[in-house]
């Protein structure tokens, strides 16, 4: 996809204005998935801003975000980084054949206690 179009699309989907970011890093400092991410929330913001989106689309960091909204709550500039991550993640899994999770993967993940909520949430986040 054309780089400029991709950037505009992600900004439109998310409703986020990455220009508001002042690079304080508070979003990444509070992110519970920080240690497991290659690109951290503040990097999603700056890389979308600069149009450097391809590396984000390929990164497993997309699937480590817990949608806990801590970065949304605690950003002093109201940037809402999780919404950008969500838009990039959807852009990635909406591509043909790019579903992260398929029904065939499920049996191996089950145990007797796992709540339905875990399955439906994972499908919502990892599958189009």
């Amino acid at each position, binding site marked *: 996809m054309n780089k400029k179009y991709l950037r505009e699309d992600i900004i*439109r*989907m*998310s*409703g986020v204005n990455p220009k508001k970011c002042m690079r304080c890093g508070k979003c990444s400092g509070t992110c*519970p*998935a920080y*240690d*497991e991410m290659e690109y951290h929330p503040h990097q999603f913001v700056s890389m979308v801003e600069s149009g450097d989106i391809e590396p984000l689309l390929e990164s497993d960091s997309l*699937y*480590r975000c*817990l*949608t*806990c*909204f*801590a970065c*949304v*709550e605690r950003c002093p500039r109201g940037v*809402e980084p*999780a*919404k950008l991550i*969500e*838009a990039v993640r*959807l852009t990635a899994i909406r591509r043909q054949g790019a579903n992260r*999770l398929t029904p065939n993967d499920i049996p191996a*993940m089950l145990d007797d*206690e*796992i*709540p*339905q*909520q*875990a*399955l*439906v*949430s*994972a499908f*919502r*986040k*990892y599958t189009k």
Partner: protein
Amino acid sequence: MKFSYFPGCTLKNKAKDLDRYAIRSAEALGISLEEIENWQCCGGVFTTARDEIATKLSSVRILKAAKDKEQDLITVCSACHNVVKQTNNAMQNDAEFSSKVNRYMASEGGYDGSTTVYHYLEMLRDIVGFDALREKVVKPLSGKKIAAYYGCLLLRPGSVMKMDDPENPTIMEDMIRAMGAEPVIYGNRNECCGGYVVMESPELAKKKSGDVIRNAKAQGADMIITACPLCKYNLMKNGADVPVVYFTELLAEALGVKEDTNE
């Protein structure tokens, strides 16, 4: 007093206690919860993307069902509450989104975002009142030190959920006091348990849930309460050596309606 009630998928399956004790306790408090008919799963997690329409229709239909009955809507699962409330907020404040939704729903009549949504805890605080609750307690939980675990979904984003101060909540602690027990305040009470990422990365859930348990115990908790089936699962799976209990179960115990003679 009557309300529309949306239990959600997990409360009909792995989290039956959350549902059963919610209904029974409400009855003891003079509130009848009327389950919405033919509801569908909310999807478990709200998608913030503004162009995701179809995946949000089940929530819109839940909201509309309550409106059609001219009732306010009560939810009890943290995740359902988050999804339904954020969807309602989008219907109220995102004109492009709500117009697309209403085009999908043209044949069943539209929805305008006007349903009031309460989490069960808000019902206890704002409709019953904690003072009235205290008076209805027949088995005070005296001597128990209870850690309320909010997790992320009940409180955030604070500007949408509007339940409590997202960084320094008191609603569950006030409920604990009304039941005669002592609340334990600890830093991780509003941090994430690892959520659905447990499906891909059990290590992440182990770390995050472990932090919550250690922190609550270090502050002296001998029990943890939650409103979320996934929080309960992650905590129990990752070494909770104190009971992790749904808040409705504890409430039913305090109200003296936990044992059911019909079952």
